[in-house]
C-alpha cells in the first residue's frame, strides 16, 4: 500500500496522463469555474443529485466528476446528501409518475436561492421515453428548470461546462 501512496504522491496528478485535447478543455473549464463559482456563491456550490427516473447512465457520468481525472471538489463543487444543504438540484431522467411527488418534495425541501439543472436528453424532454404513459415528461414538466444539459448521457466535461454556465447566469442576475 505504501508504494501506491508514494507513487501517487510523487507521480504527479492523474490529469497529466489524460489525452491532450481533454487536458486543454479541462484547464479552460477549471478557470471558468473558479471565476463563476466565486462570483456567484463565494467559494462553493452544493449539489443534490436527484434521479427522477433515469436509466442510471447519467448517474455514471456524474460519478465520474468525482474521479481523480475531473475531481470537481477542487472547484468547490460538492455533492451533498440532503436537499436541505443544496444550492443546485441536478435532476436526471424522464420524470416517472412514480417519482414526480418525490421530486416535487425534494425541490420544496431545498432552500432558496436554488437552481435546477435538467441533465441528459431524458431530463430535457423525456428523451426516448417521451410518450410513455408511465412518465410525466422532462424535469421542466414538474419543477422549474434553470438549465438543460443535453446528451445521453452528457460527458463529464459537458456537465461541468453546464454548471459553469449556470453560475455565470447566476452571477449576472
Amino acid at each position, binding site marked *: *500500500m505504501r*508504494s*501506491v*501512496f508514494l507513487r*501517487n504522491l510523487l507521480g504527479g496528478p*492523474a490529469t497529466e496522463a*489524460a*489525452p491532450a485535447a*481533454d487536458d486543454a478543455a479541462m484547464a479552460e473549464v477549471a478557470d471558468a469555474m473558479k471565476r463563476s463559482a466565486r462570483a456567484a456563491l463565494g467559494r462553493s456550490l452544493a449539489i443534490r*443529485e*436527484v*434521479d*427522477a*427516473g*433515469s*436509466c*442510471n*447512465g*447519467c*448517474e*455514471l*457520468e*456524474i*460519478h*465520474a466528476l*468525482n*474521479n*481523480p*481525472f475531473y475531481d470537481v471538489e477542487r472547484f468547490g463543487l460538492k*455533492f451533498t*446528501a*440532503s*436537499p436541505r444543504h443544496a444550492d443546485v438540484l441536478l435532476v436526471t*431522467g*424522464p420524470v*416517472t*409518475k*412514480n*417519482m*414526480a*411527488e*418525490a421530486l416535487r418534495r*425534494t425541490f420544496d425541501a431545498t432552500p432558496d436561492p436554488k437552481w435546477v439543472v435538467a441533465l441528459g436528453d431524458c431530463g430535457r424532454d423525456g*428523451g*426516448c*421515453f417521451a*410518450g*410513455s*404513459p*408511465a*412518465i410525466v415528461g422532462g424535469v421542466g414538466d414538474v419543477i422549474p428548470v434553470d438549465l438543460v444539459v443535453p446528451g*445521453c*448521457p452528457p*460527458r463529464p466535461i459537458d456537465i461541468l461546462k453546464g454548471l459553469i454556465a449556470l453560475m455565470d447566469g447566476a452571477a449576472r442576475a
Partner: protein
Amino acid sequence: MMSPLATLLARGKKAARHAPWPRVAVDADAWTDAAGLLGRGECALLGLWGDGASVHMALLDEAANAVGVLTLACPDGGFPSVGAQHAPAIRLERTIRDLWGLTPRGAPDDRPWLDHGKWDGGAVIPYAFLPVEGEGLHEIAVGPVHAGIIEPGHFRFTVNGETVVRLEQRLGYVHKGVERLMVGKTLDEAAIVAGRLSGDSTVAWQIAFARSAEAALGVEVPGRAHFLRALMAEIERLANHFGDIGAVCNDATYPLLLAECGMLRERTLRAADAAFGHRLMRDRVIPGGVAGDLAPDGGDAIRSLVTFVRERFPRIVEIYDGAASLQDRTVTTGIVRPDLVRRFAAGGHVGRASGRAFDARKAFAFPPYDIVDFDTPLFGEGDVNARLWVRIREVEQSLALVSQILGRLPGGPFFVDLPRKRSGVEGMALVESFRGDCLAWLRIGADGRIERCHLRDPSWFQWPLLEAAIEGDIVADFPLCNKSFNCSYSGHDL
C-alpha cells in the same frame, strides 16, 4: 429418459416460429406442474411475463443447458400462481397483474408491485408493508431519494438495536413503461430503448435485444460483428467492475481504492470512446450487427488500456487483500446461502460468490465465446468479500478476453441487412451482462414492427437475495452489502 423440462414441453403444442428455443402452449395443469418443478428445484426460472391475454414462463434445465418457454392462455383473466410454489416468481406475478391485469390465482402476495397508484386508473390503496412485531423493534425508512448519487428505491429496515431483523424493499419508482413503449416501434427504434433499460449494461442489453430479433428473423450476423460486440461487452464488464470494486472499498472507508478504481474506470471509458465513439458504447450494437467499425486507432487504445490495467490493478488487489480493516468489513458480511442462490437462479457475481456457476457466455456459447479461452470464477462463501473476489477474477478474465478478441478479430463486414416484413416470428436471447444474464424476448408483427417485447434484467432474481443477505447484520453494513450486489433499479423497474 427425458428430462423433466423435456417431458413438460412434450405436453404442449409447439409454436411454429419461436427461436432458438421451443415455446409450447400448455394447459393449466401443465402450468401448475411446471411451478412444482421449479419449487422442487428441478428447473430454474428464467422469466415470467404477460402478453395480452396470456402468460409466458421461461425455464432453464441447468444440467442440460436446455431452455423452454411455456405459454398459458388466460381467457378468464387469471392463471394459477407460480409464486405459490416458487417464491422467486412472486414479484414477477405482481408485475404481470400491474401491467397486464392478469391475476395470479392463489398467489401468496396480492399487493401491487410496480403500480404505486400514480398511473391513470391504477391502484389507490395505501401500500401495506409486512407487519413486524416484537419487543424493542423499530423501523428505519430510507428513500426513494437516497443520500448518494444512486437510483431511487425505498428500503424499510426493521431493527433491534443495530441489528437488522428484516429488510423490505419497495421498488418501481423508475418504472418508465418500457414494454408498452416498445409496442409498434421498428427494430432500430426499439433497440434504442433496450439500450436504456439499465444504462450501465447498455451494450449487454443491446446485444440481447439484437440477438432476439436476429433469432426471430433467422439471421446470423457476420463474424466481425460478433467479435466487436463481445469486445464491447467485455470492456463494459471491466468498467462496471472497476466502479463497483472502488465503491465497495469506499463504503468500507478506503477512499484510496475508490480513487484508484475510478482512474481505471475513467481510462476504460476513454478507451471505449476512442475505439467506438461513445464512452458507454451506447447505440453501437444494432439488430444486424454493429453500427460502426472499430476506429482505426481503436485497437491501440484498447491495447494500451489493457497494459495500463495490468500494471495498476494487481496493486489494488494487493492492498485489498492485505488490509485487515477492510477484510474485517467484507468477510462474513452479507452472506447469501448457496441454496437461496440456486432457488432464485441468481446470476452474475451474486450467483458465483455462492457457488452457482451459470454464465450465459458458457452455457450458450455464441461467437466468439465458443472459441476464446476463459474461466467463470467461482466462490462459495457468499459474503461481500466473495462477491468482490468474483469481480476481481472477472476483471482478469475480461482482460484476457479483450486481448484474445482483438488478436483474432476477423475482417469483412460488420453488418448484415435484415429481411423486411417477416411477421409473427418470435425470438429470444440470453446474454451475460456484468451483472448476470439478461433475457430478451420479442414478437415481430405484420408490419415488421414490435408487437411485444419483454426484457428481464438479472436484478429481478438478485434484489430479493439482498433482503436475505442483510438479515442479522448491522445497519451500517447495508451500503457495503448493497454495493457488492449493485442491482439495477431501472432494469428491474422496467
